[in-house]
């Protein structure tokens, strides 16, 4: 599903974010990306949804070489994936329902499809009763649930989350992480870059550890701390 072959990324300002990274993520996997700030977690995620292109090496998604992807095909790659961020990225002047519907509308879905699908995903994230609330009327956890709903509304094959719980208290963070696990259980490949040590340790999923732009560990049922 996702494959990195000897990928390096050097930004225009000269910072090397990834050095010779190779990894493989299968369909249906749930993967944590861990490591200190600046280890390259975000860059790795950005390479998957083609916000960045690799400086060297190859990134494949579903067999597609993203380095070779034409600019006008990028939107269609993105429709295969959902992305969730630490800062939610919701439109402040639109309700929860409208924020989710917006993602469907701008990708060309009909009103009818939208009316059927949006309540479904709001139900999935447990916010059916707050459909008409503006982001400012929602708690942080609820806002992130709206963002998750938006990320999965178009049935993506991959869900990417970059520090999804970074702005949330531990209890709320658990709720979000459980939601991601549930989405994974329904068949979506999930990649989560995170600092949430206790959650990583408790869930016992695959952990890819990054440091200084290199992969320094990859364990099938890993924990946050580096095994000595």
């Amino acid at each position, binding site marked *: 599903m996702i494959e990195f072959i000897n990928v390096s990324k050097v930004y225009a300002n000269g910072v090397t974010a990834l050095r010779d990274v190779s990894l493989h993520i299968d369909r249906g996997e749930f993967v944590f990306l861990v490591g200190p700030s600046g280890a390259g977690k975000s860059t790795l995620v950005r390479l998957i949804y083609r916000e960045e292109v690799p400086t060297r090496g190859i990134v494949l998604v579903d067999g597609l070489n993203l380095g070779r992807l034409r600019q006008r095909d990028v939107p269609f790659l993105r429709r295969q994936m959902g992305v969730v961020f630490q800062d939610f990225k919701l439109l402040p002047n639109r309700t929860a329902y409208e924020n989710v519907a917006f993602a469907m509308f701008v*990708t060309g879905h009909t009103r009818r499809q939208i009316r059927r699908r949006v309540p479904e995903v709001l139900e999935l994230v447990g916010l059916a009763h707050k459909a008409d609330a503006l982001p400012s009327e929602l708690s942080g956890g609820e806002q992130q649930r709206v963002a998750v709903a938006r990320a999965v509304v178009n049935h993506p094959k991959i869900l990417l989350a970059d520090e999804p719980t970074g702005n949330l208290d531990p209890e709320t963070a658990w709720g979000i992480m459980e939601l991601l696990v549930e989405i994974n259980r329904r068949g979506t490949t999930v990649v989560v870059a995170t600092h949430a040590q206790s959650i990583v340790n408790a869930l016992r999923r695959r952990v890819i550890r990054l440091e200084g732009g290199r992969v320094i560990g990859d364990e099938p049922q890993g924990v946050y701390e580096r095994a000595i």
Partner: protein
Amino acid sequence: MRFDTLAYFLREALAGIRRNGFMSFASASTVFVSLAVLSLLLVVAANVRHLAEYVEAQVAVVAFMDPRTPRAEAAALQARIEQLPGVAGTRFVTREQALSELKQMFGDQADLLEGVEKENPLRDSIEVRLADPRYADQVVKTLNTAEGVADVKYRRDLADRIRRVGEAVRLGSAAVVALLGTATLFLIANTIRLTVYARRREIQIMKLVGATDWFIRWPLLIEGVLLGLAGAAAAAVLTWWGYERLMVEIAHSLPFVPVVPEQPLLTQVSQVLLLGGALLGALGSTISLRRHLRV
């Protein structure tokens, strides 16, 4: 394109115009000024061409007869000229006829000619229309050497002079239009940039969830085109109103000046203005999108 998508594009474009009210107004105003000058250029050019053609078509060569020449002799000369190559037609105009034509030209201001009427200063003349100006020299030479001709006027010079003036006017206003047009482009581009900035969150999310580049561009392009059309419409209205006023004024005080009638000129000029406005708007948006929208 689906209706609700189109409605969304229009709504966003209008929201953009409202959000940047002052800049939108400034943009539309510069479009208006540029196109008003363009419109002036078009109207003047059309009239200069009309005037030159009028002068040329009326009479190319006029031979004024010596007053002592008998009319029979003049008629013989007319017949001879008629046979020359390149002559489309001739007309013998008596001095009495010439005076009454002059009176007609002045219309309701014919009283200006009152003094002239008692002692007609005009002369008999032969008017020669040419099929082709290339034969003018031959005709002028023949007339000049003929008995009883006092003076030969070749009006082609006048038509040429009118054309030269017209050309100068056209070049000058074209330069002004180009200058104003460029300024307009950048003002529109700036206005659209403000919209891009105001909508940056939305645009970021659209890109993230896989909206196509054109889906993101359309509202911004439409916004530019609407600004252009608004300015163009104002310029068209001004042109329409101004030209009609001018027509009335000329018909009243300068009835002998040949002017291009309102239609189809005004319709054509308006079409050019609207097209120009839409183009300016689209181009301004495009400049902005290329610079500020990485899609």
